[in-house]
């Protein structure tokens, strides 16, 4: 399992959760109300939100049924529950049976779309794939320039139009170019948009329609980029974006901070798509395929030195 960077980032931070968990599982604790409240707090601090409360309720239930008898059994219980909730959330990037694989990148403003595209392009290039970028964020000032810089740095071709152009037109050109140049992957950027902005969501729908017109089975992947520091609103983002675009997976960006992206547990309930990648740093190589166990262990920080035994 590759999650070295993620775990090391987390190790570095010595965050609340670790402190919370080690205090929680220190010797001699009893499985009582105080313990449960502290556990709930620890889960809340990872942005699990109401899911955290439900897990605590589950724990109470298991305690009543004598399935869990003491504090020492709680870590394993938590790990099981968290893994269970994330079952099936791990999947590789799909590739089109023939022709270019079109990957559409969507998300709210500032979630990390452009940077994620650069990382993904580098990742694919490293695997020997040919990649084309489509600068579909024609709204934000200098967004086209930002992606262009990345394209230059990575030595990857880019299809673009000036800021203010119709993003659907850029998408059209980009797909046409991808087909003509027979590239393996087209990574299509879009402007950041708040999911509450109806007009902008309609614009996104149009981009999807235009892509489909050229390649009926495209986009093969529509990845929603979520900022791991986002709280429960990430759930709203996921369900709203899925209404306007055929979201097939997620990228959890900014996992190198002290945030855990725990809102993902809640997202599973409204949009059960896999996480394809985690963004774990500022470098272009800081993108890791998502691995459920690694992620859950990171949430629980089951680092051998401090973690409770699972």
């Amino acid at each position: 399992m590759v999650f070295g960077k993620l775990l090391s980032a987390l190790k570095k931070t010595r965050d609340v959760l670790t402190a919370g968990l080690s205090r929680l599982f220190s010797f001699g604790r009893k499985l009582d109300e105080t313990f449960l409240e502290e556990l709930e707090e620890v889960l809340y601090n990872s942005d699990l939100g109401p899911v955290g409360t439900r897990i605590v309720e589950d724990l109470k239930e298991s305690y009543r049924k004598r399935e869990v008898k003491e504090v020492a059994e709680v870590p394993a219980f938590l790990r099981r529950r968290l893994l269970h909730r994330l079952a099936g959330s791990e999947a590789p990037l799909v590739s089109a049976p023939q022709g270019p694989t079109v990957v559409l990148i969507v998300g709210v403003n500032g979630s990390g779309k452009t940077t994620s595209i650069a990382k993904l392009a580098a990742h694919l290039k490293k695997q020997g794939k040919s990649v084309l970028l489509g600068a579909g964020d024609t709204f934000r000032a200098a967004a086209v320039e930002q992606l262009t810089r990345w394209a230059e740095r990575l030595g990857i071709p880019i299809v673009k139009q000036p800021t203010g152009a119709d993003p659907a037109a850029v998408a059209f050109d980009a797909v046409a170019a991808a087909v003509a140049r027979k590239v393996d992957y087209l990574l299509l950027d879009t402007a950041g948009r708040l999911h509450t902005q109806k007009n902008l969501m309609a614009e996104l729908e149009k981009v999807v329609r235009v892509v489909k017109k050229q390649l009926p089975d495209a986009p093969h992947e529509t990845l929603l980029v979520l900022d791991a520091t986002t709280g429960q609103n990430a759930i709203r983002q996921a369900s709203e974006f899925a209404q306007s675009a055929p979201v097939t997976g997620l990228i959890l960006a900014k996992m190198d901070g002290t945030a855990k992206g725990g809102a993902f547990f809640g997202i599973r309930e409204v949009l059960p798509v896999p996480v394809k990648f985690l963004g774990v740093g500022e470098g272009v190589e800081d993108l890791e395929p998502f691995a459920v166990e690694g992620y859950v262990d990171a949430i629980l920080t089951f680092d051998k030195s401090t973690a409770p035994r699972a």
Partner: protein
Amino acid sequence: MFDSLAGALGKAYRAIVGQKVLTESNIEDGIRAVRQALLEADVNFQVAKEFVADVKRRALGLDVIKAVEPGQQFIKCFHDALTDLLLGGQAQGLPVAPQAPLVLMMCGLQGSGKTTTCAKLALWLRKNKKKNPLLVAADLQRPAAVDQLQALGKQLNIAVYAEPTTARPPEVCRRGLEHARTRQHDVVILDTAGRLHIDEPLMKELQQIHDLCKPHGVLLVCDSMLGQDAVNSAKEFHARLPLHGLVLTKVDGDARGGAALSIVKVTGRPILFAGVGEKPDDLEEFDPPRMAGRILGMGDVVGLVEKAQSVIDEKEAEAAARKLQKGQFNFEDFLGQLNMIRKLGPLKKVLGMIPGIGSAMKDIDFDDQHFQRIEAVILSMTPHERQKPDLIDLPRRRRIAAGSGNPLDVVNGLIKQFKMMQDLMKKMGRGGMPGGLGGLMGGGGKSGGGFPGMPGGGFPGGGFPGGGGRGFPGFPGGRRR
């Protein structure tokens, strides 16, 4: 934003509303609902706990005033606690520079909206404080961040100081400051790169900029959608740099904004501004008592009136109101009124500012396109028809329908409702606040005469508040007496 919090508080309120006195036991349910709502809104666990304890202390410490209903008192306790929390114990406003230029330094996590906020703030200062700001592009980390600030500067006609990305940010800031002094800029805004609070070298760099430029105020730019980690990052930024205040961004989303409360609590610094949209002038001064009111679903009448006053031509409005009362109101006047309302902004935003409506309406989707439809119908009438609606017979209606691209039903509906409103006005004479416009907008949705998609009945309560002393200028009948 904060809508769901308002909803949960409503629940808490209803639990207490019938009670005669506030006791530990009868506020328990309300308190629990409040706590849950706070947690679901991403308020930090500890902050929520302390806040709830604060509300409880206030509620139980009250001398029970017989005349005032306990439920109201509880809400007031909550309102006061929230206002205090939002104030962060600090005076509001930007810092004052003893000697120009005023230097403001923006910092925050990646993607929080710093560059956009810099531009918005510069525009705000120019518009509202008659300042001549200079933006300094010190984000040399993110590709094309400098280009972004320059593009915004160009668009808004605001000066930007930039250097090649090979320069060092602290030096750029220092030279930017010198540049400002020679060019007589009275405000300098430093746009720094986004950084993680645990990125040691970058946090050190921020301190270097601070030491070198001695800004009068450091503003932390925070995304309103932040989760629990907001507390960790804000604490760290505040430990490294003395923050003056916060700018909350992306408030136009539907985040519940609880993290903002946590940040105010752990840093003790107030929110100064809120970014409320994608346009450069979508920056508002943050007013804690008013926001507390909005959270509690008490509406923001003050904000509404202020906004109305800024866009509505009072004379025109008065003239329209007089005509309306005499029953001489025609489609041209109506169109004028419609446009005034549209100037207030998206309908949903406007309605959200009205007490009691905000929370009741949160799930209803107002499509501002209905305004456009009505406008299209009216614009398809000849000037003569607009002035004398009685002229409009069936052939004319058919023509108007075809001309405006609407089914005949829509035109019929509009004219019918318009006439009803006219009649009503005549009867009411100098009445309070007629709900005419509301009825016209949405009435008869099911019968096919109204505008599809508009919730039946139009604006709830049959019109806008403010018929009395504190009028809502510009709406028919809303005259000040």
